[in-house]
């Protein structure tokens, strides 16, 4: 298969603004595009949920219309095991992840960064202690730890997400630490210190912003994906978001009970929603990383 390389005369001047986009592979643009589409969709559905602009009342129980296939009686995506409209619950369901998901990412990133810098930048002893703690958190099987905490306190989505965030702190710590170690080898930091730059700018601007930005974006998008999957698993075990508030996780779980009997859609609809959302976040992370990575050549 022959690949074409054509010289476009007149297009080769430096000034054209599109350089950034043309510089990247078409694939990355597709990834970022799809990812942004998902983020917009999630934001819109979150807003629709908040302002109650929903096709049907998500909590209206209708026992005559239980497990109705998509398209019956005005329910675009059919109804769930209580006869409630699946589309409305799907739109409202994102609320279980939007803010809590962001919380999970914040909890994973902020302390992660701080400890990472401390470990990478600080003295050897700080590094050993922080590594020990991150190994400690990592040594738990994630789900059992979360279950214990929820069983101990209360099954509230924000609570779950804080714990999910905490279990991701070690990954961020190691990410930042490895980057700082790498930069130290390049005596990049000594040069900056030599210039008398205050340590704060070195850490914040040079290390975190320019070098860790790409990986942190990936961690954030992965974090959101993981938060959704974790809540779904917990819902299967009964400890996710509780009825009657909808969440994609508990919709899949309650739908799955009827899956083996042949009613596929109550669990397939939210499962596909989860799939498309997580795929969106993954690709957004991947695409942005490739774009930003290509710029930050180190």
């Amino acid at each position: 298969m022959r690949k074409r390389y054509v010289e476009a005369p007149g297009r080769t001047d430096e000034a054209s603004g599109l350089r950034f986009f043309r510089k990247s592979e078409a694939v990355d643009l597709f990834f970022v595009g799809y990812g942004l589409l998902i983020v917009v969709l999630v934001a819109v559905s979150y807003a629709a949920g908040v302002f109650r602009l929903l096709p049907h009342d998500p909590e209206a129980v209708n026992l005559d219309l239980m497990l109705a296939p998509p398209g019956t009686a005005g329910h675009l995506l059919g109804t769930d095991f209580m006869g409630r409209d699946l589309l409305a619950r799907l739109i409202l369901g994102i609320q279980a992840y939007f803010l809590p998901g962001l919380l999970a990412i914040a909890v994973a990133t902020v302390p992660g960064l701080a400890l990472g810098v401390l470990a990478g930048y600080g003295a050897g002893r700080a590094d050993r202690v922080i590594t020990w703690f991150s190994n400690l958190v990592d040594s738990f099987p994630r789900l059992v730890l979360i279950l214990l905490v929820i069983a101990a306190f209360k099954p509230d989505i924000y609570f779950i997400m804080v714990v999910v965030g905490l279990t991701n702190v070690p990954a961020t710590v190691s990410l930042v630490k490895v980057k700082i170690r790498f930069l130290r080898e390049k005596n990049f930091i000594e040069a900056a210190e030599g210039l008398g730059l205050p340590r704060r700018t070195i850490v914040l601007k040079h290390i975190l912003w320019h070098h860790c930005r790409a990986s942190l974006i990936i961690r954030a998008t992965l974090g959101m994906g993981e938060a959704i999957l974790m809540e779904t698993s917990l819902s299967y075990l009964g400890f996710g978001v509780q009825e009657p508030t909808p969440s994609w996780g508990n919709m899949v779980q309650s739908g799955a009970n009827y899956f083996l009997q042949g009613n596929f859609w109550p669990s397939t609809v939210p499962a596909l929603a989860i799939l498309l959302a997580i795929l969106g976040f993954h690709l957004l992370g991947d695409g942005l990383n490739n774009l930003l990575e290509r710029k930050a050549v180190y």
Partner: protein
Amino acid sequence: MKRVSVVILFVFGMTAAASVWAADSRKDGRPNGGTVNYGEYGRPATLDPVTSNEMVSLRITELVFNGLVGINEKQEIVPELAERWDVSKDRRTYVFFLRKDVIWHVLPGEAPKPFTADDVVFTYNVMMHPKTITPLKVRYEFIESVEKADDHTVRFTIKRPILNALAKFTFKILPKHGPANPAYLTREDPFVRRPIGTGPYKLASVSGDGEITLAANDAYFKGRPHLDTIVAKPFADQNIMTQALMFNAIDMIALVNPRYLPEIQGDKRFVLQPYNALSYSFFGYNLRNPFLSDRRVRKAFTYALNRQEMLDSFFNGQGTIISGPFAPGSWAYNLDVAPLPFDPPAAAALLKEAGFSPGPDGFLQKAGKKLALTLKVPIEKESEAVKRVVLAFRNYLKNVGVDIKVEFEEWQAWKGDVFFEHDFDIFFATWVFDDSADISSLFLTAEIGPWKNNFGGYSNPEVDSLLMEGKLTLDHEKRRTLNRKLHAVLAEETPYTFLWTLTNYTAYHRKIRHVAIHPYKFFSYADEWFIEP
């Protein structure tokens, strides 16, 4: 997993009836052989009758052990390990004459040991020993002492004469040589995992993943049971268990999940057999909440519920709506008291009469305070049916202007809230009874307090007197009229909104014949089952 969802197990004595020598030895012309694999939801922790407290374990002890007396399909007391018995005039001493031809299950390489009175005394002592942790202690506190008259006679003296005391002597007898520790039985004792009994089946093996195989006991005193082996297969997921049945991986399911009833009903290969556990489901109210202490509000809630629609939608219509605190199958049920109809306007009227008027947000309020109540339900992985009932309840009440906030809580946290701190407005549960229909511990004023059953805090002198009277009389008929009156009063008072008694179903492959199911102990008549070749 370990307990029927939200079932609070609660067993009392049985009715007394003339003893009839029922089953004869096994010359009934039915073929022997074959295996029944039955699916269980969850794995039994222990296999002995004393420390077990889960339905899963009790079903197996029913096959492996025997009691002094037994209960036949027609609920009559029949002899089992005791051939005959006589009761003293003051009904405080019971003498049992034991069968002489019973031997304990034989472990490979050991000589067979006969069943003697010593075993009965041993079982009583173990049960009552402070170090033995068993739910049976409370149930048999009425026994004062047990003495062995001779090798085959044992005399029980009880503290006070009680109604149908004889029925209580169905507790299972352990072998003296069984447990490692002669004085008491704890869950560390190996006997708990390798039980030895006198019953129709003996424990053959327990596989690594919890599969329990019971083999037929050839030396069973009632004659060898027909089925060669019964295998209990544990499942962690009810959907998978039902598919296992549908695809012939197992032959029987002890308790079918309501949502699969239509599917199994439609399949010719299987028989759906109801067994009415004497239980009923209800919404309990916390009368300490000012709103709920008003009877009219509780009645209005009952009017607002369309119980028949719920039954039809969620349980495939398999159950009967009840109006009082007894299961319809029980002799104490008062058929004259009809359940309140589904009548939302009547509910609205009652609420208006109780002083509630619609607030700005459409929900009722009284003196500025919104009628908002919390309904607490425990989380159980297989609580699909409970979830549907609770959500429907919330919807019905929303239609009459009551704001119900549903709160699902982890099992232990829920028990703490409801039974200890009484921190709830409404809660949903199911009681399981034996036949004595003694509901004193539910509604007696004395039974109010932490970890006690009258958690709703219901106290009514008239009910108290009826209950106490019932407890004392020995006359069955008098007891029955008292209970029927209680039923009428409580139907009017509605401390609970009585919902229904579900028909439990077991499903088994058509090849298994002559299947009689004990409403509560399930396998009591399993020795008569056989497989069509």
